[in-house]
């Protein structure tokens, strides 16, 4: 894998993200919804002067191609435009909502890997044992339980019933967030030396991240199990065992390393999904994140916000996939040689 390859991948990533915005831009304009009608009140929508000012303000009075060119022009200056619904720069909205999603998704994916991989490995090694059955049951529940149901059950049980979980939201009611550096409360409270807020942030992240991790954990457990079983049946594993290599070395040095490749691919996609698609978890746990912002923008056809979100989400997917591709080199030396 050369530097040229990495540069080319990054360039393609940018072009693909832009292409995604064009597709979304066109699709959004073919939907029979007038964003002005969804935003303006009944009385104002009957006043031509107010409607005209709105259309002009958001550039909706211009031809579609011109609107897209203006979007690209602004993008070249790092400006994603102004949201029709929130009436402020889309970049500012994203700066506010993305850290909450990033923090939640990151904790969730760490949990998913931490639980899913060991459980999958154990299930494969102890195939058809009670451990394997437990692992399969856990992954089945994780994959099949609807997120909105799981979220509410978890909240009702641990917050409403047992009263051991804190209230929904990123922090307690009235708590002032730490001074913003990254927007990630875990990092910002640590930087500010505010351990109370750090603890509170952890506590508030616990339930939503477990809920969010459930599906991914299930998928990772299943994939790890299947991948490990597949690898353990390979000839080179039999050869290693025949040569007298220690069983532990066979499992972890020879089998797990090869089995990890599809898991990393899957994990990358799952992480990108968690970053952008946690609408129900964010709604029930009162997390002001990207998933909910994207959903609300889509419902009212907030064109600038939709385009901005598409760009960011597209880039996120592409960059995560790029990182996964590059990490193959670490796991599989054959990728480097190719």
């Amino acid at each position: 894998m050369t530097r040229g390859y990495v540069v080319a991948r990054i360039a393609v990533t940018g072009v693909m993200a832009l292409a995604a915005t064009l597709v979304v831009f066109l699709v959004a304009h073919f939907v029979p919804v007038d964003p002005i009608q969804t935003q303006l009140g009944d009385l104002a929508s009957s006043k031509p002067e107010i409607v005209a000012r709105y259309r002009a303000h958001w550039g909706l009075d211009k031809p579609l191609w011109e609107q897209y060119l203006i979007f690209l022009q602004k993008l070249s200056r790092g400006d994603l435009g102004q949201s029709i619904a929130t009436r402020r720069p889309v970049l500012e909205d994203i700066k506010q909502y993305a850290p909450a999603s990033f923090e939640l998704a990151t904790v969730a994916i760490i949990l998913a890997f931490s639980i899913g991989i060991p459980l999958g490995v154990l299930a494969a090694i102890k195939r058809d044992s009670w451990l394997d059955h437990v692992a399969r049951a856990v992954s089945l529940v994780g994959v099949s339980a609807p997120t909105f149901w799981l979220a509410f059950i978890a909240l009702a049980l641990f917050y409403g019933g047992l009263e051991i979980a804190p209230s929904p939201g990123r922090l307690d009611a009235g708590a002032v967030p730490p001074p913003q550096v990254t927007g990630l409360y875990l990092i910002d409270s640590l930087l500010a030396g505010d351990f109370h807020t750090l603890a509170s942030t952890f506590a508030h992240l616990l339930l939503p991240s477990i809920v969010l991790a459930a599906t991914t954990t299930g998928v990772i457990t299943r994939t790890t199990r299947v991948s490990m079983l597949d690898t353990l049946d390979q000839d080179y594993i039999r050869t290693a065992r025949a040569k007298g290599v220690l069983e532990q070395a066979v499992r972890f040095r020879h089998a797990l390393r090869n089995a990890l490749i599809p898991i990393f691919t899957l994990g990358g996609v799952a992480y990108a999904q968690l970053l952008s698609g946690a609408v129900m978890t964010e709604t029930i746990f009162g997390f002001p994140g990207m998933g909910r912002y994207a959903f609300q923008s889509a419902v009212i056809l907030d064109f600038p916000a939709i385009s901005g979100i598409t760009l960011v989400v597209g880039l996120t997917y592409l960059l995560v996939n790029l990182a996964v591709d590059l990490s193959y080199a670490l796991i599989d030396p054959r990728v480097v040689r190719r």
Partner: protein
Amino acid sequence: MTRSDIVRRICSATTLLGTLTLLLCVLWGSPAAAGTKTVLVLGTDISDTNTLDPQRQFVYSAPITEHAIYETLITMTPGDYKDAKPLLATKWETVDNGAGLVFHLRPNVKFVTGNPLTAEDVKFTFERLKYLKDDASALAENIARVEVVDPLTAKVVLVDKAQPLLPFLIAPNFGIVDSKVVREQGGLNTPDADKNDKATAFLDQRSVGTGPYTLTRWARSTEIEMVRNPNYWRQPAAFERVLVRHIPDSATQVLQLKRGDIDAALNLTFDQLNSLKGTAGITIVKGQSLDFMYVAFTSSAALSQPLSNKVARQALMYAIDYDGIIKGLIGGDAIRPASFIPVGLGGSTTDLTREIGYRQDLDKARALLAQAGLPNGFSFDLSYGSGADVGGVSYEVVAQKLQADLARVKIQANLKPMEQGNLRTAYRKGDLAATITFWNPDAMDPSLWADPTVERVAKRVRWEPAPAIVALAKQADAEPNPQKRDALYVQFQKLLIDQANLCVLFQPVYSHAIRDSITGYQLTAAGWQVDLYDVKPR
């Protein structure tokens, strides 16, 4: 170190980190502190709040905050939406044969900034609202200009003296701002305000009003924080701090209310409110709204041949089980106006509904269908917004009930659920045969219901009202005598009922669930849900 060592270490590290995360959460996470007597916490969905600039905001959730941080010249008390009460103005009178209104301001009122309230602030506020040409500016359309008579007297000159202004002035959009500070922050009250006003960013984070509370923080889709205004002209507000907490999910609001993390839950469904009845420490507070859910039937033969027939539409109206909707779907927590003016305004009462309104009469419906040449019924498309509700009952449920009712006279309603934005666009364009939708007031004058029925709503149902009915609406709007005005609106409603394009299904009673730790919590239909100044710790 070999690659397998690296892999193993990565696995170990992630496992360790995950376990540590869990432990830290459990060991260090403490439940949120419940709202104490010095802090009032409201749980509601504030995702629609896109600004707290009083002259720009025009959404559902913002007025509860705006009304607590800004005050208007006049106001209305819950239940009485006819007579304006003094607030920042102690008295007012019409001048120039109705072409102007003079307001006498309350002396010794200070803004939270410490500046005194003057007529200049009234002029700036009203003219800024008008010239911003934003969503709320339509409310100030009838204001030509504001003249400063003296520091405590302002004269509002009207564009059209036949159109009422007073009912509009209670809206939080007319909340008086400290003109000196807003000007310093780039605010304008000149015709170029729509392009050059820069004060909104400031007003989104700080309030400059005379209200009992003042805004200290607004984190979008998270929380609004207000503290007690030290310069308030009446008794200081009861709470040191008020938090309006964003809780988009109503089931989560129930959990938080039960735990005591919030003092009031504002967005509960009918079923959730029922489940809370009898719960110790929780009370359901009710308030009659002026909102209503209605069905709009087109007059356009191109959209529906049968519906273009007035007699067929009248048959529809007689087939609907109105009492069944109110008792069966909303548990009786609603009333019904006779037509498009809500009970409480313009002579509209429940007695009037019984007297002149439609009621279910299946024999009459069948007879009218026969008269319309449709003895075997007909079918039409009934559109409604999916995933939304009014007064705790969803459009879907109401649509299903209507479908069942109409089937009894062989009328088939084909249910067409639509996404809300889609529905609004199509309905406002007049592209739908029949639409279940919703009306809520911009201000408290019957003209705001009567005029649209013969103007923009008439266009949506493709009805060209006869000049006589339009003239009647205008005559009622301009009538100064309250009794005569009510009588004219009643006459107007009779014509609307005969026309049978608009069928009001119910006018809901809204309910909030509150903890017994607070008192004075009274719902209003005037637009701001609750006057937070009246809420006190028990």
